[in-house]
């Protein structure tokens, strides 16, 4: 394993960078999209609620690989030429946003209803009270579950290996094919993944305990 690190570190580190980059981009956009659909799900308007529910249920129940491959195969054919990294990040964003929508919705619903009533009786509109009163409180509650979503996102980003996204898994596979030392290469890749996910997961558990 040390031998693999010593000789192959440029490609492995490049893969790690791509994995982190795509996870962070996907997290950013899926937070926005997820929060939006979470709000849709609890809006007084019934049509909006249905849109929110359908989005969440559909994308939670379809494999990430299907979503990613869809963008990788269909976008270049009919719309615009994209590389594997972009297609993978779009797929990850959409898949993760459905999970984040569920998390954020649970967070919003755990904020006392009186907050919304109070805000609206003070003359704030629905969106204003969401923006200034409800969401800031909800986000504090959902930080640990969101952290776990980010860990899942980092792990799920290995799906980029299917679409030539040059992420850690893809690079690891390449190195394994080059060196034929599959076992030690995959150990090295595993260590690199754990460097990101393990501390995060312990920190999130610590936060959960603190909040509980």
């Amino acid at each position, binding site marked *: 394993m040390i031998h693999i690190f010593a000789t192959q570190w440029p490609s492995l580190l490049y893969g790690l960078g791509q994995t982190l980059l795509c996870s962070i981009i996907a997290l950013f956009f899926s937070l926005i999209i997820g929060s939006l659909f979470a709000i849709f799900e609890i809006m007084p308007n019934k049509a909006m609620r249905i849109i929110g529910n359908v989005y969440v249920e559909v994308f939670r129940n*379809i494999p990430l690989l299907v979503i990613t491959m869809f963008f990788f195969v269909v976008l270049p054919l009919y719309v615009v030429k994209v590389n594997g990294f972009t297609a993978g990040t779009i797929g990850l964003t959409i898949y993760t946003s459905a999970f984040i929508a569920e998390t954020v919705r649970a967070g919003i619903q755990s904020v006392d209803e009186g907050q919304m009533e109070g805000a609206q009786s003070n003359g704030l509109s629905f969106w204003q009270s969401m923006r200034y009163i409800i969401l800031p409180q909800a986000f504090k509650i959902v930080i640990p579950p969101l952290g776990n979503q980010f860990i899942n996102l980092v792990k799920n980003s290995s799906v980029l290996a299917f679409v030539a996204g040059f992420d850690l898994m893809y690079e*690891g596979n390449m190195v394994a094919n080059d060196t034929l030392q599959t076992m030690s290469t995959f150990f090295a890749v*595993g260590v690199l*993944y754990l460097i990101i996910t393990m501390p995060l*997961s312990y920190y999130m558990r610590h936060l959960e305990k603190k909040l509980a």
Partner: protein
Amino acid sequence: MQNFIDAYSWINIRYLLQGLWITVEVSVASIIFSYIIGTILGVIRYSEIKYVSAVVGFVIDLIRNLPLLLIIFFTYFGLPNLGFKPAIIEAAILAMTVFESMMIAEIVRSGIVAIDPGQMEGAKSNGITYWQALRIILLPQAMKNMIPALVSQFISLVKDTSLATIIVLPEMMYHAQIIYGQNSNYIIPMFIALAVLYFVVCYALSLLSRYLERRLA
């Protein structure tokens, strides 16, 4: 429109359904194995046996934080290096079982932790041993509360079987790729079919979970 009619010929649909059957086979086998192993590991982690629980806990955290895809690579491409060469379907089931057992172990542990400590104290003061109390009193109660988490884990297991395409497991995703690889007009119809079939299986599972929750609660 003609594309859709052509793409959904019985031959193609049958081919997809054969893939779905492999998906179901791998999922069911992994669910059964990982449920058993996961429960045992979860109880071991909960019960604070000297050294053993700490080691088991660390291994659980380690494997939980790895991508499933990496574990699939391990079992299929790594294990032959150590002199054990599993068949494709065995490698898929093995990888899914290892990964999902750890996920389930964590669910089981937090399920038992959530039970009122008075239950254990009450059981012990009635002369039941620790392990008996765990098996007869704590686990059944914990299982009831764990149903939503367990079922959502099983749903992600079903979805994750698609990752085994990478070791050429002939499941639904792989069969779809073969079909649309022959004719690019079939791409969109095939993805729609995939989405619908996966959705039906997974959504049925989540409806089952809601039903069980209502029945048992």
